[in-house]
């Protein structure tokens, strides 16, 4: 615990003396992709859940439709969940003649197969740009949609890889010289998953309606190298610290048409704040490799274990025929 506290202190010290860039590994900045340019991103995240290594892989297409409007489409696959809801999600006890049903804690760390999650769409519109010499303040709004329909068994909704639904929010990014800070906050209005859970040999229709969520991310970035630009061939090294927070409502579990009381924190309302220190290498001023590691700062998410590692590679496909 003491070791964690020291690590966090070091991270905060890094922030206070930082100077950085806005190409954050996890959070989108308020800036856009160039108009008419397609970008491709391959991304993956993973964490160890007891004996099971959980992993998500995604492929994203990015397109600058207008100077102020960026569109993204991501498909993903993961081994986060089984093909259907856990068996014995709902158990019961007897009190005299009465049968009391409840959602009990279920087993974690079971290996699952990779399944295709679905499609996640994201659109970002920049409504404000105050550009100065080597600085800018930008504001954007975003909307997101997902048709992901997997047997997610936690209350917290994640549109890209866990739950279907909608989301919208606001981004404010300030950049001065090599320092960047960005606030990214929004709501998630998830849908529900309708599947089956086996209880005492009976397979019963079971629905989980996930809780609405509020995201609040604060990201800092700092350009380590180069100190002075001389060519596009210089490898850029940026370091980042991203605080990723979320509050979410309790899920509602219905089995056989009956709402079941919850007795596991996994499906109850919660909130947490993670910190994700990260590093980024940009080659030829285009190919971007991001790596970050997520650690719990205040409470923790039940949708992943820690450390939560993230890796991505992104490139814009410029037409360089000239």
């Amino acid at each position: 615990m003491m070791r964690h506290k020291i690590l966090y202190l070091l991270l905060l010290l890094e922030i206070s003396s930082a100077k950085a860039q806005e190409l954050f590994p996890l959070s989108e900045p308020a800036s856009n992709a160039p108009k008419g340019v397609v970008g491709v991103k391959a991304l993956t995240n993973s964490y160890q859940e007891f004996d099971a290594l959980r992993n998500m892989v995604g492929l994203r297409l990015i397109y600058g439709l207008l100077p102020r409007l960026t569109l993204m489409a991501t498909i993903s696959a993961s081994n986060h969940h089984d093909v259907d809801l856990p068996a014995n999600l709902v158990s019961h006890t007897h009190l005299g003649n009465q049968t009391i049903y409840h959602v009990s804690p279920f087993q974690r760390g079971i290996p699952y197969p990779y399944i295709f999650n679905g499609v996640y769409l994201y659109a970002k519109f920049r409504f404000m740009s105050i550009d100065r010499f080597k600085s800018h303040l930008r504001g954007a709004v975003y909307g997101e949609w997902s048709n992901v329909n997997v047997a997610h068994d936690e209350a917290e909704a994640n549109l890209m890889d866990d739950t279907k639904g909608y989301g919208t929010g606001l981004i404010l990014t300030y950049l001065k010289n090599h320092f960047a800070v960005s606030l990214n906050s929004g709501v998630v209005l998830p849908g529900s998953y309708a599947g089956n859970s086996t209880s005492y040999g009976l397979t019963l229709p079971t629905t989980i309606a996930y809780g609405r969520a509020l995201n609040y991310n604060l990201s800092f970035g700092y350009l380590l190298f180069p100190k002075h630009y001389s060519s596009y061939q210089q490898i850029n090294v940026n370091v980042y610290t991203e605080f990723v927070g979320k509050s979410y409502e309790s899920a509602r579990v219905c089995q056989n048409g009956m709402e079941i009381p919850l007795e596991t924190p996994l499906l109850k309302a919660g909130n947490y704040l993670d910190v994700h220190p990260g590093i980024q290498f940009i080659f030829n001023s285009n190919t971007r490799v991001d790596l970050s590691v997520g650690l719990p700062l205040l409470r923790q998410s039940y949708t992943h274990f820690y450390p939560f590692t993230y890796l991505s590679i992104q490139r814009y496909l410029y037409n360089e025929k000239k």
Partner: protein
Amino acid sequence: MKNTILYFILFWSVHLAAQFQSVEIGVGGLTCSACSRSVEMSLRKLPFVDSISMNLERTNAKIFFKKIAFVEIEKIANAVVNAGFSVTYLNAEFLFTNTIVSNNFCFSFENNKYQFLLDATKTLNGKKTLHFIGDKYLSKKEMGTWKARMKGICALSAKEKLYYVTL
């Protein structure tokens, strides 16, 4: 009659057989080499651009043109905006031959009209830098003092664009 003569002297557009030598454009909000590359790639799409020299330390770009090509200044500014940045200034080097210019003097060049905004009459000879005036070429703060002086005086045909310039 006197007014008509004055009108002709002041506002009759002169056709200059010259060439844009180069353009220097200031890019606002630019701080990273990947962003600089986006701007360069956006500018490279313009058919009249021959080469570009980006300076990330000074956050500007020097653009050189193909010899046989119509330079469209507005498209240069649009290319910077399309890359996600803004234009803080746009200066073009233009070759003059003993041209007397005064406030609201108009000249025609490559199917566009250029109107001078000046405080004094000047004789231009050789390579001169024209500073473009307009919402697309200056920050809002810089535009404040020019807005009132931008009264379209040059006669335009249907396909012509009007650019305001100063020295």
